[in-house]
């Protein structure tokens, strides 16, 4: 099924994520990944959601999200006009002989070692889903003790700000 990346600007308020995840579950939409963080404008958070589904599903996802009062703006990001990254931390089992082999792989992938213990290393890698899958496959031969990864985050290439995407008259809450 086709995957779509949605960049959703929302009010930075408690409970907003619950509104969004609840909407996905009750309407039967599939979330592939989800990442949330505040934007440069502190009253706004950006949620990057990867959803799978055909065009009809995508249309409904966008329209239903738009109906939520706390959702300010939705953009679909295509791979051509946006950049995206995922991040993974991978704890790899090592001994004196395998440590250097792991470090070589880390170099090739432009990843970094961010923690060293006697019998393990933690590797930080950013990139596409495919790149993370590749390094994971290569490192698995040494034994992966634990791993964590974020959802995809993505940004439009054009030089606009979060606030730019909101209709001008609505940009900032009026001061009382």
């Amino acid at each position, binding site marked *: 099924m086709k995957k779509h990346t949605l960049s959703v600007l929302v009010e930075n308020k408690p409970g907003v994520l619950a*509104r969004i995840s*609840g909407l996905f579950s009750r309407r039967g939409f599939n979330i592939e990944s989800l990442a949330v963080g505040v934007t440069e404008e502190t009253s706004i958070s950006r949620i990057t959601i990867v959803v799978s589904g055909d065009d009809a599903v995508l249309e409904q996802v966008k329209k239903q999200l*738009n109906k*939520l*009062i706390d959702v300010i703006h939705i953009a679909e990001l295509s791979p051509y006009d946006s950049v995206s990254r995922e991040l993974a931390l991978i704890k790899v089992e090592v001994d004196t002989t395998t440590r250097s082999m792991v470090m070589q792989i880390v170099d090739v992938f432009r990843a970094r070692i961010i923690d060293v213990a006697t019998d393990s290393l933690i590797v930080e890698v950013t990139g596409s889903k495919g790149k993370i899958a590749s390094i994971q496959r290569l490192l698995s031969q040494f034994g992966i003790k634990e791993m964590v990864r974020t959802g995809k985050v993505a940004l439009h290439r054009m030089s606009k700000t979060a606030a730019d995407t909101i209709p001008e008259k609505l940009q900032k809450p009026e001061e009382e």
Partner: protein
Amino acid sequence: MAEITGAEALIESLENENVEVIFGYPGGSVLPIYDELYDADIRHVLIATAYMDSVPLVAITGQVPRPLIGGDAFQEADITGITLPITKHNYLVKDVHDLPRIIKEAFYIASTGRPGPVLIDIPKDVTTDTLDFTYPQKINLRGYIPPKSADVKHLREAAQLILKSERPVIYAGGGIIISDAAGELLSLAETIMAPVTTTLMGKGAFPDNHPLSIGMPGMHGTKYANYAIQESDIVIAVGVRFDDRVTGKLESFAPNAKIIHIDIDPAEIRKNIRVDVSIVGDAKTALLRLIGLVKESQPRTDPWLDRINKWKQEFPLQYKKDGLKPQYVVESICELYPDAIITTEVGQNQMWAAQYFRCTRPRTFISSGGLGTMGYGFPAAIGAKVGVPDATVIDIAGDGSFQMNSQELATTVQNNVPVVVAILNNGYLGMVRQWQELFFEQRYSATIIEDSVDFVKLAEAYGALGLRVERPEDVKPTLKEAVGSCKPCIIDFIVERTENVSPMVPAGAAINEILDLE
């Protein structure tokens, strides 16, 4: 200016929104609010139903004090969490200074765009905190911009389709009533000479006695409405959502027709069905503009209307007139009180009311559509009577559904709200029994509720009037007695027990596969 409490600010804010009546129920956490209210009317509120049927409603609930939230305090319920999927929006007020703004926003959200319920949960200590009260003049909701005008380009496309059409059908729903567009609907229908079918929620949007009316579509609609939709070359859908009870099997719905869909909620467009031209906007504005674009045309629908009239004659709504029939009770109510406000419970009573009560005005038929909420009709009748005290208000009820909220008899008596409840008593959960008869080999599991209660004595126990009717000739005199009494009244009509709602489209079938039931 002197500081006032949150509870006082709440009442002041409601007065700013021109609230006249509040329905509610007191409890520990809302005591400070009730202390301010002292003498309001009382009603139970049905929120999910309001969401499904786009009813503007502001619900205010009392929460435990802020420091206790999350600690499973006595009578604590996460009501904003619980109502998340069944409200248009909701709020938990954490600071008394936010209260006026939240109330202003809540009324705005509930009543604009596609209306819906908004819930405000107020912790007890917020109602006793104080603030310098000013009611805001402006609203700033950057994530909420209800659609306003309809797209002109799409309206032109729609007009082109209409002008080419020889077999149009207008399929009108609750959106017409919400947008006060009944006049525009009538004008469009008469301009293009198209038959009009109205959904359960749209009943009253078009006069049932108009020659162009073809009644209700769908599962228990008229045969001629369903045949007309299936044979049409264009369906003009206004303020409807293509509910499965209307469309039957989606793939075979209106197979030869182009579909024009006008709705204020963009998410309704193409949610269930393919659409050829979509117009997002307010029904009244859209219809007005559409009429402007087609009014010079010469309708070519005479042969089509002839065909429909033949269907009307050949396949009328009908029932065998032996014994006391529920359909006859509804017809009698309609004959005696054509201008009454009718509310319904849910099930067979509701379908007979929709089939046999002929509405002529909007907002005179109040029913729970999308969710089919049993117990809806009686409190809805109380609300209608309080809102329109001069109207005759009759709840067409079933013996099962009525018992979901029969305790509201206390409300009608205590507040002297003279509504009439016409119970079509067949001793069954009749609609479910009908399905068991047709699809489950007459195994009547858990649907027999015969002799569960004596409704006459129940009415009398609350101080209301209770009457019973067992013969057709007593129907009209008893209705007159009930309405004339000006008291809350129950009439227990002991009807033919196994009467079915007919015709019927079996679930999952195409709507022209509509059967007559004995």
